């Protein structure tokens, strides 16, 4: 069980809902992922009311929604978007994104911390999309966040874990804080690696939505996340530089050592 702001979930996979070939495939991929939490956003509503049909589809999945502030570049934009999201989705949860740079979609961590403080004071439960910087993480916790979501790599890049050392450091430093690797993963092995580090969950979108078979890839990530977590809980061995025979040495035929 993973827990976020007092809500326990059996699945450690949070899945995004954007960029699928069709609404039907989105629905099947969510089902295959086993996810209990899906990310959603707010966008300008046109005359056709496209948002209403999407919202009906998401409600039918029974998943808990985590609205994002994707595309926001200032504290003001992010706060107003969060307030609109709270009303529409009827949840205090917000995946807080404040983007600072277009090529990398790197979070503006200074604005992120400020927005997190404003939103926490207003009763929100903030899931901050952040870098893997330790000090920023501390400031987000001081601002009231009870979950941290460091990036694996830039959004949509599929690179995997750019800095496993830093992610391991965060895990060791914030042992009691739910940590989610959010963004940049491309393969199930990337997700398994993050889970083996002891991360509590994985949030991803593009790696599934843009796969040749999104439903199949959702299932592959589901299994990898489960396997990675199981491995972490089972206690991996220490890495060594030199070999250590796994087969007993004593009694080896033709062995010249003392019994």
């Amino acid at each position: 069980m993973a827990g976020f702001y007092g809500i326990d979930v059996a699945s450690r996979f949070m899945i995004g809902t954007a960029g699928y070939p069709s609404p039907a495939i989105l629905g099947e991929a969510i089902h295959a992922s086993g996810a209990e939490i899906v990310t959603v956003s707010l966008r300008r509503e046109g005359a056709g009311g496209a948002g209403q049909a999407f919202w009906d589809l998401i409600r039918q999945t029974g998943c808990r929604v985590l609205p994002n502030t994707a595309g926001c570049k200032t504290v003001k934009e992010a706060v107003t978007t969060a307030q609109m999201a709270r009303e529409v989705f009827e949840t205090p949860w917000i995946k807080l994104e404040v983007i600072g740079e277009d090529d990398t979609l790197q979070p503006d961590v200074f604005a992120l911390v400020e927005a997190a403080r404003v939103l926490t004071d207003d009763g929100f439960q903030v899931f901050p999309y952040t870098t893997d910087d330790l000090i920023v993480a501390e400031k987000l916790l001081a601002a009231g966040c009870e979950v941290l979501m460091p990036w694996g790599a830039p959004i949509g890049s599929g690179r995997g874990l750019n800095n496993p050392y830093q992610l391991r450091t965060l895990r060791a430093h914030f042992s009691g804080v739910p940590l989610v690797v959010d963004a940049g993963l491309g393969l199930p092995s990337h997700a398994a690696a993050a889970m083996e580090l002891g991360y509590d969950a994985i949030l991803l979108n593009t790696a599934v939505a843009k796969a040749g078979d999104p439903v199949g890839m959702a299932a592959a990530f589901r299994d990898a996340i489960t396997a990675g977590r199981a491995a972490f809980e089972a206690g991996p061995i220490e890495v060594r530089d030199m070999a250590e025979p796994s087969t007993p040495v004593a009694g080896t035929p033709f062995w010249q050592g003392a019994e």
Partner: protein
Amino acid sequence: MKITVNGATYETGAVTLAALLSELGHDGAVVATAVNGEFAGRASRAETMLRAEDEIEIVAPMQGG
């Protein structure tokens, strides 16, 4: 009067934000609104008076990552 709705200029006869939503066919729809960058909650729409040059955002649930 001339206002901006979701980034586009729009001529409206609506006096309140609630009336504007009605005029645009969003009655009963799951939408949220902001006026000049400030959140305008559902309960306040009937009392939110529109003024010329106001910038209105009307948003709805959409796919997100």
